[in-house]
């Protein structure tokens, strides 16, 4: 009895309208906010959370000021599901509407799945090069590689989010510890100069000893990927300091050192996600329309080699035609200097859901509107008498 009341309440059309209205407001706010925040941050702020938070200056914590997209989506989902119990049944008269709304449930679930599970990374690859990893857009890691054995490297990667200034870290199996002395989210690096007042000259060892670091304004939003972080690390073996080293994402080569007869390479780099297969860029092409800067097409001819899956073939990746392999999709995203192709790599386990949803909704619409044409299907929501629908729809 009580349960039925709850369902009735949840299935109320006014709740539907409230949620849709909420979504209108959120989508509008999210769109306007993109001008300042960029797409990623605006979506995080308005759509992905259960609340929109506001952090007034001077207050130590943020306040939830408005329901977020996740709340609206969840409520809408409950509302839809409840309406299946209370109102919408897969009976002959309602099958069209039932399918449409069932498809919508899948759409909402798909967006939840994307928000939670989808990972987007990049693969920057030069002609002739071969890669078995992709890189995060904006997450940075500190990599310590034991290169003593020429056959295989032992890699330890520490996300910079886990590093703290002044707190020593000893990676497992490494005979020294690392202490962050200084970290800049975005920096430019030049030859060492003593005069410039802004120059940070902390490094005493490695190539950094001859370099100066200039902190730059940190890019936010969609430009985050353009930041070039720099990190000063003091390396200590027991009590003995081996000097302060500079690592940056700008460096072409890692810093190398020998400790206790073993060789190590240390670098700061975009977080790597290793793939169980390898991609080689054979040829990158990009054309513009004659006499203009308007890009006409981009394409990357790659070689995919995945012994485990028995795949060894060439693939042409171009606009609107990605390579899908091993649960990931590789899209042509951009290029640098004519020979470096930038592929966007998306790992979204739920990527098929919208397609399924579309088919379900599509069939539903077909049934519904054909039904209208024939004039059989009475109004479903509420008790309005039939009629009026047979005009255009």
């Amino acid at each position, binding site marked *: 009895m009580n349960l039925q009341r709850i369902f009735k309440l949840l299935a109320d059309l006014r709740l539907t309208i409230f949620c849709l209205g909420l979504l209108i407001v959120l989508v509008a706010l999210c769109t306007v906010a993109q001008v300042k925040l960029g797409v990623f941050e605006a*979506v995080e702020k308005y759509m992905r959370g259960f609340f929109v938070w506001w952090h007034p200056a001077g207050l130590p914590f943020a306040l939830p000021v408005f329901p977020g997209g996740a709340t609206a989506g969840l409520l809408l989902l409950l509302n839809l599901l409840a309406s299946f119990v209370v109102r919408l049944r897969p009976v002959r008269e309602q099958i069209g509407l039932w399918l449409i709304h069932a498809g919508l449930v899948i759409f909402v679930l798909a967006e939840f799945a994307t928000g939670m599970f989808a990972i987007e990374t990049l693969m920057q690859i030069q002609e002739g090069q071969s890669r078995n990893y992709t890189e995060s857009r904006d997450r940075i890691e500190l990599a310590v590689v034991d290169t003593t054995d020429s056959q295989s490297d032992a890699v330890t990667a520490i996300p910079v989010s886990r590093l703290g200034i002044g707190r020593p870290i000893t990676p497992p199996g490494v005979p020294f510890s690392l202490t962050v002395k200084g970290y800049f989210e975005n920096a430019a690096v030049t030859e060492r100069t003593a005069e410039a007042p802004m120059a940070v000259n902390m490094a005493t060892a490695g190539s950094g000893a001859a370099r100066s670091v200039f902190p730059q304004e940190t890019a936010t939003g969609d430009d985050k990927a353009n930041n070039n972080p720099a990190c000063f690390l003091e390396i200590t073996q027991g009590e003995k300091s081996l000097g302060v080293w500079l690592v940056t994402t700008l460096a072409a080569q890692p810093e190398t050192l020998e400790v206790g007869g073993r060789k190590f390479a240390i670098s700061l780099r975009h977080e790597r996600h290793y793939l169980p297969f390898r991609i080689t860029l054979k040829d990158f092409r990009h054309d513009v329309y004659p*006499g203009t800067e*308007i*890009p*006409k097409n*981009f394409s990357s001819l790659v070689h995919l080699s995945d012994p485990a899956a028995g795949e060894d073939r060439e693939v042409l990746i171009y606009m609107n035609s990605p390579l899908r392999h091993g649960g990931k999709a590789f899209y042509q995203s951009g290029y640098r200097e004519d020979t470096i192709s930038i592929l966007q790599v998306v790992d979204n386990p739920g990527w098929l859901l919208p397609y399924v949803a*579309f088919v379900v909704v599509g069939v539903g619409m077909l049934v519904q509107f054909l039904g209208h044409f024939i004039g059989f299907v009475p109004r479903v929501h509420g008790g*309005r008498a039939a009629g009026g629908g047979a005009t255009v729809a």
Partner: protein
Amino acid sequence: MRKWIPWIVLGLAALYALAGFSRPKYSTDFDWVAVGELPVLQGGRLKPLDTVARNALLTFRGKQTLRSAEGKTSALEWLLRVLADPSRADKDKVFVIHDPDVLGLLGFQMKDKYFSFEDLGPHLERIRDQAERASRIESRERSRFQGAVLNLHERLMSYQMLRHTIQDPQSASFTSDIKAFLVQLATGREALRASKGNLSGDNPAIAALAGSFSRFQFMAQAGYFRFLPPLPGEGQEQWRNMGEGLLVSLTSGKIHPLAEHYAALVEAFRKNDKAGFGTELGAIRGYLATDQSGLLRQMGNEFIFNQSAPFYRGMVLYVTAFLLVCVSWLRWTEPLGRSAYRVLLVAFAVHTAGLIARIVLQGRPPVTNLYSSAVFVGWAAVLMAVVIEALFRRGFALAAAAVTGFVTLIIAHHLSSTGDTMEMMRAVLDSNFWLGTHVVTITIGYSATFLAGGLAHIYILRGVFSRTFSADAAKSVAQMVYGVVCFSLLFTFVGTVLGGIWADQSWGRFWGWDPKENGALLIVLWDAIALHARSGNLVGEKGFMVMAVFGNIITAISWFGVNMLGIGLHSYGFMDAALFWLVAFILVQWAVMFVGSLPDRQWRSALGTGR
């Protein structure tokens, strides 16, 4: 007599429509059609010179013709003046400046807004300086002044490039320069051969040749468009401007075969030598006819399309239809109503012809950019309205169609001032399949929401103010609105999902919360709200009409507001003005919604008690 009125009106409308094909009028009697058809490569596509002229004048001056004390000059005549006789063209007032701060920068008074290159000449440095500052700022963060000064700078640059396209503007006679160059070329090559390659730079023959080369090099870089077709054996896209056409002699020893003809053509124009002009034009067209067969005809088609201005004529006809239908509600209902319907059909035919011509000329689906979306939104709305009118025969859909057709074509007209409306598609968008499905579907969705909103206007305004609006008529309008809103939901939803699929195919994100996607989603959400509110009896018929009017606001914002989010360089000019009109449009919608929310006693028609 009354029986004949609709037929006479139909005849007049058809005559007006066909008048677009009459021979164009020019102020001088050179063979302008033959000049206007000459093919040039600009902005990545081949187009007739006439199109370049119209677009250039449109971006400079905001109009396709030049009006001065001497009268009207066509864009083509003006362009030839720039190409051939810069010192005269520099006096034409072709630069429009609206921004008060830019006018202030140049020390001009607000009462003028058109300026010649000569007027602006002394200020070029200051403009460049300011433009450079502005260009360092992100386009969406630029102030109005910065946008305007950058835009002026760009126009001035384009103008100077135009002057360098066919000849060196400093030269007294470019044909003699070319002749002298050919002599230099022969002696220079001879000297080079004689010295077996180890020549020092102070050899006079080589020095003279090097001087010419660097001059042509500059022209090659500065040229605005390319008019010399590819040489035999070269790729289809290898068109050249004059500088490039002369520089080919660097490798082959011969200049481009049409280079001298073009130089002589513009020189004959400058000297007002009609016979010489005709000879050179004949030579050029003769060469093109054999070398690029079919191209002249293709260019001719676009020339006719420009000349016949189908969308302008359609606009005039739509207004006529609307006025007729309005008058028909007051008196002579029968004959004027029929006349209006016929004029609307002619307008629609012209509109359709223009749309098809664009599709054929461009080889693309109907909607490729904001301009063509405006043309198509109007077309689809009118098509739907004509179908509804054929079903209901009440004149309401007719009025809504005429207004929608007129307004969207006006919008298209203003959008065209940003340049070529058949621009090339960026790589991501270059997919006829998705342009044809996603973009067209969603645009039909826009049309439907506007049509529903337009019909709701009629319901509300006539319902409140007109005693003659019967309950029966109201019911049928309400039915139309309901049907069209359903239709709109169907199309915007399918279009949005198709957009998602396209996005998933091109960058792996089904839904990226991109502004344009969000705009379409807003319409879907709003239509869904309106339909649920109606089916749940949460609003009555009048309330539903008010909601349909609000759909206009949502659609206008998602169509245009999104483009205004980052008001930048390319949107300058039109978009500033567009913002004003968008706000005005929204205010009007609010006003109508307010009227629609008045209590029953204020409704003077059968729908209320205020009789």
